[in-house]
């Protein structure tokens, strides 16, 4: 027998008398059974899945708000994105306050890649947890960032209340995507497990250590790439050097909504225009800067401009300070809080 037939014959199987329609029915029944199996497994597993997902930082954040409702203490919340994460070192602020006779708990409630539009869903729970002062750390990009992390919205669904005013800030598609089906949650977990298996930092399955956010600052690696920074700063498409117009974007509306909610609950608010690298700062046009501060002035809260507070030596990239920069910033925050609380 030729080699060709040898190879072809390897694919020969015993030929049963299976009728075509039986096989088709078998395939359909098999797939239906799989769907049934998964549907029932999914339904049974939902409480377990939710238990796992409660360890996601966004869920932990809502847990923190719930927990803090029952805590009788003076507290200050720092709210923002990774800028707040790297610049605010809560223990240093607490220590300085304590040494000056103030027993105030400091909480760094950062969310990576946070935007005002995403943060606004938390405001009701945030004010209900009775902080004594909320400090928002923002920058020019906060007014225009359309970064949308549907994970945060979906995984925290049910923990926030979408008032009609808030709903008006979202598109229909965004609203429809906020609801997390069980399938979404399971797929999310699969992704997280897969990332963990491959040595990547899995998204959101670590319980956040109290005081909130401190553990993130420790052990943070700082590697500076000057060439990359210059190139990035010169890139007109860099979202951290946006064009700010006088128009009120939905992020501005979200910020206004949050501040008004705080005012209704008599919670003072301070807005910090966070430090950015001089290379980036010089790229912000006068017109953009003018529009930005004009809008901030309409919010009716204290504005602290720290944009040009630090030089190159205090930054490890265009927007995040070094550890020394963070310590100095935290020291200034302590002074600010002392001033506010006096």
């Amino acid at each position: 027998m030729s080699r060709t037939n040898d190879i072809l014959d390897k694919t020969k199987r015993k030929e049963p008398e299976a009728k075509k329609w039986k096989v088709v029915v078998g395939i359909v029944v098999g797939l239906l059974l799989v769907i049934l199996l998964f549907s029932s497994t999914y339904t049974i597993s939902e409480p377990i899945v939710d238990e796992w997902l409660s360890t996601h930082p966004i869920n932990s954040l809502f847990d923190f708000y719930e927990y803090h409702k029952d805590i009788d203490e003076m507290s200050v919340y720092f709210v923002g994105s990774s800028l707040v994460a790297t610049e605010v070192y809560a223990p240093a602020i607490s220590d300085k306050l304590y040494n000056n006779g103030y027993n105030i708990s400091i909480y760094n409630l950062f969310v990576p890649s946070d935007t005002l539009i995403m943060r606004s869903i938390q405001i009701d729970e945030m004010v209900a947890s009775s902080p004594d002062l909320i400090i928002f750390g923002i920058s020019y990009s906060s007014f225009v960032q359309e970064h949308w992390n549907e994970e945060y919205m979906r995984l925290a669904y049910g923990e926030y209340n979408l008032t009609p005013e808030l709903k008006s800030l979202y598109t229909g598609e965004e609203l429809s995507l906020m609801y997390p089906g069980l399938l979404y949650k399971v797929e999310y977990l699969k992704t997280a497990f897969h990332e963990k298996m491959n040595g990547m930092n899995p998204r959101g399955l670590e319980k956040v250590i109290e005081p909130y956010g401190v553990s993130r600052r420790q052990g943070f690696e700082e590697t500076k790439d000057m060439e990359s920074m210059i190139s990035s700063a010169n890139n007109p498409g860099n979202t951290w050097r946006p064009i700010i117009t006088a128009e009120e974007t939905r992020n501005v509306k979200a910020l206004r909504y949050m501040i008004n909610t705080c005012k209704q609950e008599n919670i003072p608010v301070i807005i910090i225009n966070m430090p950015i690298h001089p290379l980036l700062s010089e790229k912000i046009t006068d017109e953009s800067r003018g529009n930005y501060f004009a809008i901030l002035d309409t919010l009716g809260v204290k504005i602290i401009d720290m944009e040009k507070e630090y030089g190159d030596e205090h930054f490890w990239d265009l927007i995040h300070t070094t550890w020394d920069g963070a310590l100095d910033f935290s020291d200034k925050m302590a002074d600010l809080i002392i001033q506010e609380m006096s």
Partner: protein
Amino acid sequence: MLFTTPEFFIFLVVVILLIELIRKQLWQQIILLLASYYFYWCSGSIHILLLIFVTIASYLCGWRVWKASTLKRKRIWLVIGTIIPLAVLAYFKYIDFGITQINNVLGLFNPGASIPLLEVLLPVGVSFFTFQALSYVFDIYLGKIEHEEKFHRYALFIAFFPALVAGPIVRASEFLPQLKSKISITGANLQAGVTLIIWGLFKKMVIADNIGGYVDTIFANTAGFTSMQVIAATILFGVQIYCDFSGYANIAIGVGRIFGFKLPENFDMPYFTRNIQIFWRKWHMTLSRFIRDYVYIPLGGNRKGHLRTYVNLFASMVICGFWHGAAWTFVIWGAYHGIMLLLHRYFVGERKWGVGVKFLDSNPAVFVKVLITQALVFFGWMIFRANSTGDLITCIQKIIFFDFTMSGAMKLAFVGGIALVLICFVLSFNKRIVELVKKIIFFDYMGYFSSQKVQYWVIYIVVFVALILLLAPPETPEFIYFAF
């Protein structure tokens, strides 16, 4: 359009339904051909023109070879029919590699001088369909087949979608005769085909894709990992590439089987082979036979003396390595296997070392031979997988200068692996256990499942599809051999 996406299965169901509804042979073949072109267009867009060009050019050349009245004319058209597909392959696959090498040489004499790269996009499956086109022209010249009168059948042979993008490399003599009869989708073929498809999906999505992430992480930065991690990644890559490629082959053969076509197998338990020569008869079998029949034998095979045989063997394997991709690591891998085959031929084939020694045919000895062969094969996979020659050197250094740094889990795996090998070696002295193990390993599981009554076969579907849905990672990477 990947085999692992819902779009492909919708496409497949539609094609099956159309073939079922249309009973005329000609229209069935036209539909399959159009479906194949649509499939390729989804995968490669504008490169479909290239596929059509290669099809027409090789068909015409094959016809001219067939029609040629003199040997000289046959040879002329053979040369043209060889040059065109090879030129296509060379341009799209190797032109930028060639320019890079030229720039490296130019840089020695005139730093700063360089020819800009063309950044040519590699057409999906170009290595496979060009080889199929070549085999058609070669087989006509060698008198193995006649020229196919009906162009659409030849076009379908080149473009048949299950095997189009990553093989198996089908011969015209295997496929064209199957087009002489009407396509009839039988229950037996449907059951066998679906069984193979599910098994292929399991191997690819559950085994290969879950391993791939770890392997990619290690090989992306071998310098940053320990010796043991590099070795572990190499072993896992060997498993990954086998499951990925053989999984694809299973799906391709299964899909072909649904339509009643028998496509050649590409793998036959290669990781249980006892020497390198047998390994290459069991790994990527359709490529091996192509290289044997159209490179090694025409170069003279083993008919021109010992030295020439070794040269032919080595050259064939270097070409095989180079076929896999435009990188020196592939060439080195091919050369590495060439040297191993050469050494095997010299010591075992000619010097007859160990031939006739009864002990070396005993089960424990065979077990040791398998271990040694696979150690050599897996070392070759490290060469194959390394991102660059620099990385390859780093990997080799990691093995030679073993750092003995291991995490707890790695220590456990290492000790466990050694223990398993020792246990298997001890057990290999017992003939009954060996026979039982052989039966288990070499049992025709696919034949078994696909011959079960439907009511029991459904259990196979439920179990394996459920495992695939549960264990497959969220995003399925492309098949490894798509890159070739």
